[in-house]
């Protein structure tokens, strides 16, 4: 399909008005940026709401516990749903955005391995802490609410900094900062801090990406 003027003859631009060129350049750039973006703003906004609901449900289930034991079974489906939907949608959108793209945009096997080791390591340590008889407030409260954010955030920030992607590195560091803030909020409060913190980071990132796509 040939829908653009001047294509049939591989023309020389004669009669192509500079104003039209400026409009075409702006439209094409915006459209391409949107199509290559693996985390579109609308998706980040949905994730923000989902994470607030999931972590909020856990916080509601533990906020009245004295002493702290663990999130109730009723609160966990929300968290699992968030993890599964988030992971699935992220993979689908990233595949669509990077289809046909080769080079540094794609994660290397080494980078994927680093993130896999971090996630497996975080939950292996959690299991070890539970086995070692560490208190429930840490094993089922502070640790799962804060440490995954810190570990994954720092690892991702390092990977993105090595790629020279300062925006993604900053976002990852903000996620790690949310985790660190959660450590000071107690076992129940850590869930609230993580939920609200991630909500704000995701919405802020959505706003930055949306502004960049319009620039």
């Amino acid at each position, binding site marked *: 399909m040939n829908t653009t003027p001047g294509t049939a003859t591989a023309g020389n631009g004669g009669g192509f008005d*500079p104003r039209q060129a400026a409009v075409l350049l702006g439209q094409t750039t915006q459209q391409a940026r949107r199509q290559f973006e693996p985390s579109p703003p609308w998706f980040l906004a949905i994730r923000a709401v989902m994470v607030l609901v999931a972590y909020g449900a856990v916080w509601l289930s533990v906020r009245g516990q004295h002493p702290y034991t663990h999130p109730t079974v009723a609160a966990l489906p929300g968290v699992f749903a968030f993890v599964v939907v988030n992971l699935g949608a992220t993979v689908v959108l990233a595949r669509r955005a990077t289809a046909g793209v080769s080079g540094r945009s794609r994660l290397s096997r080494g980078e994927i391995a680093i993130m896999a080791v971090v996630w497996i390591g975080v939950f292996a340590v959690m299991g070890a802490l539970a086995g070692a008889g560490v208190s429930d407030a840490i094993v089922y409260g502070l640790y799962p609410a804060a440490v995954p954010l810190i570990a994954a955030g720092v690892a991702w920030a390092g990977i993105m900094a090595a790629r020279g992607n300062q925006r993604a590195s900053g976002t990852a560091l903000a996620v790690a900062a949310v985790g660190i803030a959660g450590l000071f909020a107690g076992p129940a409060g850590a869930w609230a801090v993580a939920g609200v913190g991630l909500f704000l980071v995701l919405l802020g990132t959505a706003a930055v990406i949306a502004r960049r796509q319009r620039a």
Partner: protein
Amino acid sequence: MTDDGLDPLIHVPTRLKIVATLAALPEGDALSFTRLQDMIGLTPGNLIIHLRKLEEADYISSEKTRNGTVSMTTVALTGHGRTALDTYTQALRDLLGGL
């Protein structure tokens, strides 16, 4: 250059779309011919003509890879091409700012 100082290689609607699309990728990344064709909305023959002109000017580079029986052509904007687009964009700004 055209009379108004715009690079004639880029100042053609289709080539402007090709260069602007490739410039939206991070530096050093390449795009497959088929995805570029989808995004620009051209026939393969037309796209090849424009890509050849841009490649002759060293604005883009192309690479053909073969995986078994399947071959894939990828296209990337060169540093020279990115600079040319920046210069073209600035020339457009100057021109339209002065109108």
